[in-house]
């Protein structure tokens, strides 16, 4: 006998659409408020030209769409697959003459329908509202539909896979959120712990290697809305992350196929279990253990013991990781076995985990992989960026300076124990420290980054051969100072977005002089840079306020700005803060332009007198 049901089941589809209409009504209402109503209420005052409307709609699609679709997908899937998580509903609905595959396809069709129908309506209303305020919005609304559609496909796939993996309704959103954010959370905490243990690991945590694995984070930090100047006043904005979203949507389709296969093979008696797929239970247990170990361990260490270096930190960290792992391991056991009585058994698994953690910590401690000891060979280095701040600077390319920087790197590595000991005493007022960043660009295209905190005592500072002195000398080499004072991109007077000279005299009277971009450009190219080359300015005061005695209390600030290609709302800014010194071209230029200058030594002397009196 042929089955009445084949691809989809009409009765189930109708029932789904009717039962969960409040959910998709809320989805529709949210988007109507965000798009057509906002466009109409803002009207032509808010969206004077197409560029601002494009920015708004595309940003709404990229960022708001990401969050709305993430939550809408999980709520939809929770509603549609909720019957799998109760023995009562399973025993009734799964006894009906409907194949599991048909049921899945019907639910999938429902999920797509309840997204597509309201979205098409929103697309239409957005296009209409744009035309009401006199702007063309049809293609923009379709772009919104495309962006949010691809996002939804990914989130739907992830939510369906989560639904296939769990056996409890509340475990479904928990797993879904974990899968969404695991990459970025693991990246962050792993970086925190590695920075603490691995000497020389860059402390700059802005770069998340695994960021793309957490689409919500990645989409929000890379909106993909880019501008192209049509005229000096009109900029056309478009979306340029179609490739990434296409890959996400493709992954979503693969996840949907995986979910369908898992649901077809599902043992329905697992309703009520945390993880419904038996072979994945150990995977869940050990992943949960590792995650808790990392997150809880690092948090415990930071909250209880602080983040500063200490002799016992390695032991404390290992203990915190083991404690976090303990909570994770036995917590997972309790969830899987649905009992609190898990401590009499299962110690072998935890023992293995603890051994692995100790081995990893030990491997980091003894630098098993040679990361700390590695210093690039001069002949392999194409250029190097050497700075005391995280700001980008022009790379050094000449061999002599590269050799000097490599020697500093070697010195920092050789004196690791001494430097760590000095860091532990930081805060006693007798040491001074600065952080240095090395970024090597190798000839084979690779990049090697390191950062070191270089500390020095007052007595060491008096020794011209001390490591800190060597760092200071190389860092303040006029040629390197020029490179640091130059943005990484080509500049002209057009890139100077703001500039001023501020100063205060011995009586603490503050004065300010704003410069035009042409004035600032002249000052920068004809006075500041030549002075730096002559060694008459730009030296950084790295340790113990060791700046030059003939410096003025004035400060010249110049901001260079360039729009980022990837994100027009953000600019690539470079700030130059320069202190003029006596007897320089810069001093003369400032005096010629009416700036009031006071020597730092005169200021200090006047304040010393007032303190005495």
């Amino acid at each position, binding site marked *: 006998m042929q*089955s009445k049901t084949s691809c989809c089941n009409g*009765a189930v589809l109708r*029932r789904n659409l009717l039962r969960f209409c409040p959910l998709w009504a809320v989805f529709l209402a949210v988007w109507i408020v965000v798009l057509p109503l906002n466009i109409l209420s803002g009207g032509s005052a808010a969206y004077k030209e197409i560029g601002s409307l494009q920015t708004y709609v595309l940003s709404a699609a990229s960022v708001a769409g990401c969050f709305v679709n993430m939550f809408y997908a999980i709520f939809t899937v929770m509603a549609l697959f909720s019957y799998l998580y109760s023995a*009562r509903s399973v025993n009734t609905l*799964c*006894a009906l003459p409907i194949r599991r595959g048909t049921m899945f396809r019907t639910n999938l069709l429902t999920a797509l329908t309840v997204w597509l129908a309201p979205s098409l309506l929103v697309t239409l209303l957005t296009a209409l509202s744009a035309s009401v305020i006199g702007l063309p919005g049809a293609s923009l609304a379709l772009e919104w539909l495309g962006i949010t559609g691809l996002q939804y496909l990914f989130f739907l796939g992830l939510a369906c896979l989560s639904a296939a993996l769990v056996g409890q309704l509340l475990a479904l959103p928990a797993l879904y959120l974990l899968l969404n954010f695991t990459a970025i959370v693991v990246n962050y905490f792993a970086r925190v712990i590695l920075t603490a243990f691995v000497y020389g690991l860059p402390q700059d945590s802005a770069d998340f290697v695994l960021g793309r694995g957490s689409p919500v984070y990645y989409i929000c930090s890379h909106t993909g809305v880019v501008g192209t100047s049509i005229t000096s006043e009109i900029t056309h904005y478009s979306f340029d992350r179609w490739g990434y979203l296409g890959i996400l949507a493709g992954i979503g389709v693969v996840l949907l196929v995986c979910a369908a296969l898992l649901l077809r093979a599902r043992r329905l008696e697992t309703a009520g279990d945390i993880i419904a797929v038996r072979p994945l239970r150990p995977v869940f247990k050990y992943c949960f253990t590792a995650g808790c170990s990392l997150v809880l361990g690092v948090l415990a260490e930071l909250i209880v013991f602080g983040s500063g270096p200490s002799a016992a930190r390695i032991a404390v960290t290992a203990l915190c990781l083991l404690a976090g792992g303990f909570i994770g391991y036995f917590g997972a056991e309790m969830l899987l076995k649905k009992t609190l009585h898990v401590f009499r058994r299962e110690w072998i698994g935890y023992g293995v985990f603890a051994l692995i953690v100790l081995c990893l910590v030990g491997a980091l401690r003894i630098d098993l992989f040679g990361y700390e000891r590695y210093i690039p060979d001069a002949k392999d280095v194409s250029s190097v960026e050497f700075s005391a701040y995280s700001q980008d600077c022009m790379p050094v390319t000449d061999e002599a300076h590269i050799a000097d920087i490599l020697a500093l790197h070697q010195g920092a590595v050789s004196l690791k124990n001494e430097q760590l000991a000095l860091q532990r005493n930081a805060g006693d007022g007798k040491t001074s420290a600065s952080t240095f960043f090395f970024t090597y660009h190798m000839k084979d295209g690779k990049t090697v980054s390191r950062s070191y905190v270089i500390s020095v005592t007052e007595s060491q500072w008096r020794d011209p051969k001390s490591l800190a002195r060597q760092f200071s000398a190389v860092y303040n080499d006029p040629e390197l100072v020029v490179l640091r004072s130059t943005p990484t991109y080509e500049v002209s007077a057009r890139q100077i977005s703001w500039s001023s000279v501020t100063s205060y005299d011995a009586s603490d009277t503050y004065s300010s002089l704003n410069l035009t971009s042409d004035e600032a450009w002249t000052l920068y190219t004809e006075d500041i840079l030549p002075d730096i080359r002559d060694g008459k300015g730009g030296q950084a005061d790295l340790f113990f306020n060791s700046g030059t005695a003939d410096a003025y209390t004035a400060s010249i600030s110049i901001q260079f700005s360039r729009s980022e290609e990837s994100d027009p709302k953000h600019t690539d800014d470079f700030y130059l803060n320069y202190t003029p010194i006596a007897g320089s071209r810069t001093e003369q230029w400032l005096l010629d332009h009416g700036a009031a200058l006071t020597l730092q030594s005169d200021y200090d002397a006047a304040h010393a007198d007032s303190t005495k009196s």
Partner: protein
Amino acid sequence: MIEVRNLVKNFDSFRALDGLNITVPDGAIYGLVGPNGAGKTTTIRHLTGVMRQDGGDVLFDGQPVYENPAVKTRIASIPDDIYYFPQASIRDMMRFYRGVYPTFDTALYEKLRDVFALDEKQPMRRLSKGMLKQAAFWLALCARPNWLLLDEPVDGLDPVMRRQVWSLILDDAGQNGTTVLVSSHNLRELEDVCDHVGIMDHGKMLLERSLAELQDNIVKVQLVTEHALPAGLNILHSSAAGRVRTLIVRGAQQEISDRISATLPIFFDLIPLSLEEIFIYELGGVDYAVKNIVL
């Protein structure tokens, strides 16, 4: 015909069904009985195609039921715990079942409205347990099944409605030849309606016969005698109250009667056992906890 052959089901390390065999002839009303934990509900979940077996076969007219909508279309089941969509009324559920079961009989639905006297527009969540059972019967019968699988079907119904529901089931079986499999602990009730009985324990079928065969094969003997009992009697249980001895004996009634008469007892009488007594004494043979209950 429903055939279950060597059905095996494990829940982790626990074996719930251990080579279970069931044969339910067409048109039979089959009572599936057994102590708590015997595996009756698990068996029914296999028969409804909800669970996938670890071993063995579950066949309806020679066709496997699991993931087979063609077979499942001809099966209606009422589980022990009835599920309905949270906001749905009986009428909503009827529309849903009508879309799912091609054989759904709307005319019968209208006809049975007077029998059940339920408000079909009221949300089902407001119905009592007994009313839910009635609604489930109403919908299940309208699906016009060839096989009706019932797990504790009249639990929660008042005596009048119990009688009414059994009457409907028997009518359906009589008129349409529906095969009914009922799992229940109410053995007295089953005795009135079933023509076949299977007794399960520990995931296995202990005994499966027609009710008549079952009652012919075991008998209660009350006797007063000064002589020894005849050798070779298969006595399942023996008790005494004063001079009166009560024996539960397995075997044909006539043969037992002849052999006891031969010992010239002062008094003896053969009494047929109820299904409940048979259940207790049969299970007593496999160390069931109530084996020492004296009747």
